[in-house]
């Protein structure tokens, strides 16, 4: 079920009154059944994987908590890892690695045809796999004090519908304690939740889905378009993916807020970042903190020399890229970000110091750093969005050589004007969100927040795209 469709509004209209009218185990049961209906709306068969993942990690968690034997605990952890990552491997990565291996054999003259499973990728598998993995790993590390005693509550934690299919990835230690309490019907929280839901819909329907029309045409047929058109499509994709994913996250976080849950924030004005590490503290925070805690730090983090840290950053970002999808384009995207982070560690501080040394004011250095970070992030978005590496290279080549001969800009000027206006509005709102006095004044007056939400709704009526476009992150 997509948030931006009529069935979801009908679902929500039934769910929320029933949710608040029940309490205790009955409420958790309502939550669980509703979440399975929400998830099964795509394909009911996907529910069996969810049930399997839930049962396995629940049993493993109980067994692990009951044991002080380190070997037994390690075996249980490995069982959970193999099961969860194995499921992910079969459904998401098997065909990719099989096809890539066959290509490699063919390139060295060995005749082979790939063995492909051709299975459908269950929606949200990467999100809930990481979510349940955090439960068993935290139990193993004793970061989580005790295993969840209630299967019902654990199942609701795994399947919780707002963030099930595209995050944010909420750790067990954050969410399970919240599920153990009957959350109050709180007016302030409902107001805040609704405000985030409306802002999320604005980002998705107005920014992302309008930008998608311009972007999709150019990334689908890059050979037709000239350099200005492809460069603009790249910049617009940076806003599209922000609107799409931050929009989804805000709707999920807002729905959770209405229900009484705090999922944390997932995006924090990412294009205001002034370094790459700062970018990853602002972009998809629940994933970046997950891979930091469960991949980067266990690899050794920065507890070694520069090369050791660079290696760890590269491996972490490579795996982060592969998490997004089984394709070489995501590998390149991850490697680029690994390289950015490594280069920043090696050259970022000396470069800033050199600029300040020749009299460039600090604010200008910060601004320049922000521009460089944004441009390089956009460069990395090209392989992320392109269908193939060949397409990505074609786009980069055309932009870098500023090729226009025999190519067209494309007839989308009205759309471009509309998207630019919306992107500017979103950027200004994000910038205003950095000014504490403005935020405080806005949040302290309910009528101002109501007016803000109504203005966004007018904006959605005026500029929204209502063709039920899927959220980009569903494919991951």
């Amino acid at each position, binding site marked *: 079920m997509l948030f931006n469709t009529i069935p979801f509004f009908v679902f929500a209209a039934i769910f929320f009154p029933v949710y608040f009218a029940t*309490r205790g185990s009955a409420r958790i049961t309502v939550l669980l059944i509703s979440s399975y209906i929400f998830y099964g709306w795509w394909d009911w068969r996907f529910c069996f994987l969810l049930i399997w993942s839930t049962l396995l990690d629940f049993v493993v968690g109980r067994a692990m908590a009951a044991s002080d034997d380190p070997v037994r605990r390690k075996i249980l952890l490995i069982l959970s890892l193999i099961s969860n990552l194995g499921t992910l491997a079969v459904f998401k990565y098997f065909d990719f690695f099989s096809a890539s291996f066959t290509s490699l054999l063919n390139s060295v003259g060995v005749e082979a045809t790939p063995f492909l499973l051709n299975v459908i990728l269950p929606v949200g598998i990467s999100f809930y796999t990481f979510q349940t993995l955090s439960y068993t790993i935290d139990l193993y590390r004793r970061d989580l004090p005790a295993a969840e005693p*209630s299967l019902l509550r654990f199942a609701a934690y795994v399947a919780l519908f707002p963030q099930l299919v595209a995050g944010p990835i909420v750790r067990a230690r954050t969410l399970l304690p919240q599920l153990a*309490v009957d959350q109050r019907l709180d007016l302030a929280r409902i107001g805040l939740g609704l405000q985030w839901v409306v802002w999320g819909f604005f980002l998705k329907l107005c920014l992302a889905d309008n930008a998608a029309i311009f972007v999709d045409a150019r990334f689908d047929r890059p050979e037709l378009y000239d350099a200005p058109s492809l460069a603009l499509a790249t910049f617009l994709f940076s806003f599209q993916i922000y609107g799409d994913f931050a929009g989804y996250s805000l709707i999920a976080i807002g729905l959770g807020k209405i229900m009484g849950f705090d999922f944390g924030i997932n995006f924090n004005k990412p294009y205001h970042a002034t370094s790459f590490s700062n970018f990853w503290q602002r972009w998809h925070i629940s994933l970046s903190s997950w891979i930091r805690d469960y991949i980067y730090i266990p690899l050794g983090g920065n507890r070694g020399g520069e090369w050791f840290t660079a290696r760890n950053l590269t491996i972490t970002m490579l795996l982060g890229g592969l998490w997004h999808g089984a394709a070489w384009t995501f590998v390149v995207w991850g490697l680029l970000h690994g390289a950015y982070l490594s280069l920043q560690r090696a050259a970022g501080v000396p470069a800033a110091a050199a600029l300040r040394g020749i009299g460039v004011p600090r604010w200008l250095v910060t601004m320049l750093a922000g521009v460089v970070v944004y441009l390089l992030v956009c460069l990395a978005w090209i392989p992320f969005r392109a269908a193939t590496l060949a397409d990505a290279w074609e786009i980069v080549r055309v932009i870098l050589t500023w090729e226009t001969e*025999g190519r067209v800009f494309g007839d989308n000027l*009205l759309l471009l004007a509309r998207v630019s206006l919306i992107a500017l509005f979103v950027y200004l709102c994000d910038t205003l969100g950095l000014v504490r006095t403005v935020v405080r004044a806005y949040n302290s007056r309910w009528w101002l927040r*109501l007016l803000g939400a*109504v203005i966004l709704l007018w904006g959605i*009526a005026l500029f929204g795209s209502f063709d039920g476009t899927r959220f980009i992150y569903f494919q991951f």
Partner: protein
Amino acid sequence: MEHGSSTFNSNDPVGTTDVATTLRRLAIILLSGLLLFTLGDRAISALAQSILKESPNRFYAIYGGKQRHDVVLLGNSRADQHFDPATITRLTGLSATNFGLGLVSPTLSEALFKDYVEKNGAPKLVLIEPTFAYNHPRVGQFRALVPHSPRVKAMLDETEPRYGAALTVSHLFALNNDLAMRGVVDLLRGRQGSRIGTGVMTAEMVEAAAKPRQLHVKDSEIAAISRIAAFAQQNGSQVALVMTPLHPVARRATNGLDAFLPSLPQKTGVPLIDLSASEGATHHFSDANHLNRSGVERFTERLIEAGVLGVKASPALASLL
């Protein structure tokens, strides 16, 4: 029960009162929001529509009632880009307006043309580019005109009822399309922009045009063309179908065209001037279906040579009519 404290604790009657108060406040806030949204929506859209009615945009101008023209041109993007009112006026002295646009169907054209005649009077001549007969009868971006046209509203309710319902919820939604944006842009610059292609068809485009395609003409849309013609003739206008140029490669690749064109006069009761093969040079096309600026100049001259735009004086057209 393993759960912690609850607002809904049945032992706490104060909690129930709290819930009732919270629900009442929530209902007041939501209703206030709904009221504010609805009032603002109506007020802003009414203001915007009254301003847009002054736009020089050809479609909004229909409803201003000050646009009487000698020639009205109907069709899809091929009519839009091939019949250039400015060139026609320059070469013949006849004033013209073009209601052609991409994906416009005869059913929609019928509504627009009837609105035009009602508000502005009948033209002397109506030229119809017939390839729009294979477009679906959709309102699409023309929902921008719903506040001005009961005909367009009726068509929207019939063909896209979800959009019709959405317009009941929000009047601003009528402005959520390219036509309204175009109306704003034309209003700001005080004139309409040219929509004629400036590029030249590339070798890749010629190659792509060779891919066979099938014409799927809808009988309901042919009937709409007949109704347009009948309405125009009742109001004293002369009507002709003009098949404008197709790139020769695309023409050859279009299955069914040679059967479709000769059948048109009989099906619609309107004479056909077939100029589909009148232009053969690739450099006069911007793509397989559309002429570019130089192509339009040559095509307009051909229209004049064929006597199409000198209706009364033209023995060629007179004999057809």
